């Protein structure tokens, strides 16, 4: 059993490492495309190009937290430790990406809105979501019984994932200064084709990188478990 877990962890780490390197190169290519080959927007200037890293990071962070919710719900049902380990891996990568969202957003906001931060619904709820998953990771480091840790963190993971659609809808439900979606609209994208192409190219690169990072993190957790050691996230 332990050797099966070890072999599975090793293959996950190896595949994740290759995918993450491909993802990093892809994101680097997206940088070149965004900086050198995508026109400067007329009203916002070069600061508009922050969107090409801010939106993909947000997309991947929300994807990460939704995966945490799905895996957590399945864990409570099936009690499979692989689901708990995957949820923890996805949460950690999601927190890193959400940190980037919360840093790049204000850097864009200062020149465009004239302020680094506003306590308005989209920004505030996103900050709360970030804190919630930081709490999720902190909880995992504090509880040493694997079953208790898995059960407690699964409940927080599900509650956190439930916030994601709410945060997406805040721009429709409340008066907010955050822009509405510019690509996923029923009437089609509101940006020129070259802008959309760069955004989608960057989004694909971030998604590949996210996948590789989660696979590596998941493999490390499973490896630590198979070796009988302690993992910072999985426990």
């Amino acid at each position, binding site marked *: 059993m332990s050797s099966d877990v070890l072999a599975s962890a090793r293959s996950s780490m190896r595949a*994740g490492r290759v995918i993450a390197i491909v993802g990093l190169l892809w994101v680097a290519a997206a940088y070149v495309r965004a900086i050198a080959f995508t*026109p400067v927007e007329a009203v916002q200037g070069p*600061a508009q*190009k922050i969107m090409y*890293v801010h939106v993909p990071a947000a997309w991947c962070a929300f994807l990460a937290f939704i995966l945490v919710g799905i895996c957590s719900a399945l864990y409570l049902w099936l009690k499979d430790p692989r689901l708990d380990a995957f949820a923890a891996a996805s949460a950690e990568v999601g927190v890193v990406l959400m940190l*980037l969202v919360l840093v790049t957003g204000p850097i*864009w906001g200062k020149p465009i809105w004239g302020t680094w931060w506003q306590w308005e619904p989209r920004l505030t709820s996103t900050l709360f979501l970030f804190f919630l998953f930081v709490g999720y990771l902190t909880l995992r480091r504090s509880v040493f019984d694997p079953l208790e840790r898995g059960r407690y963190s699964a409940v927080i993971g599900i509650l956190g994932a439930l916030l994601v659609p709410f945060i997406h809808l805040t721009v429709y439900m409340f008066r907010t200064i955050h822009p509405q979606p510019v690509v996923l609209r029923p009437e089609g994208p509101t940006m020129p084709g070259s802008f959309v192409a760069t955004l989608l190219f960057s989004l694909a690169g971030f998604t590949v990188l996210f996948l590789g990072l989660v696979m590596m993190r998941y493999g490390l957790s499973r490896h630590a478990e198979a070796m009988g050691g302690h993992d910072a996230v999985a426990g």
Partner: protein
Amino acid sequence: MLLLAEPPANQGFMTAAYVVVAVVLVGYSVGLVRRVGRALKGEG
């Protein structure tokens, strides 16, 4: 969105955001790759 002759000069904000993202992504990825390397060698 039309192109004007002189868009706002806020290049520094874009540079700052891109640098932060690159540093965090590369730093976190390299950290994980090194840990994976140690684990695969049987050290971790």
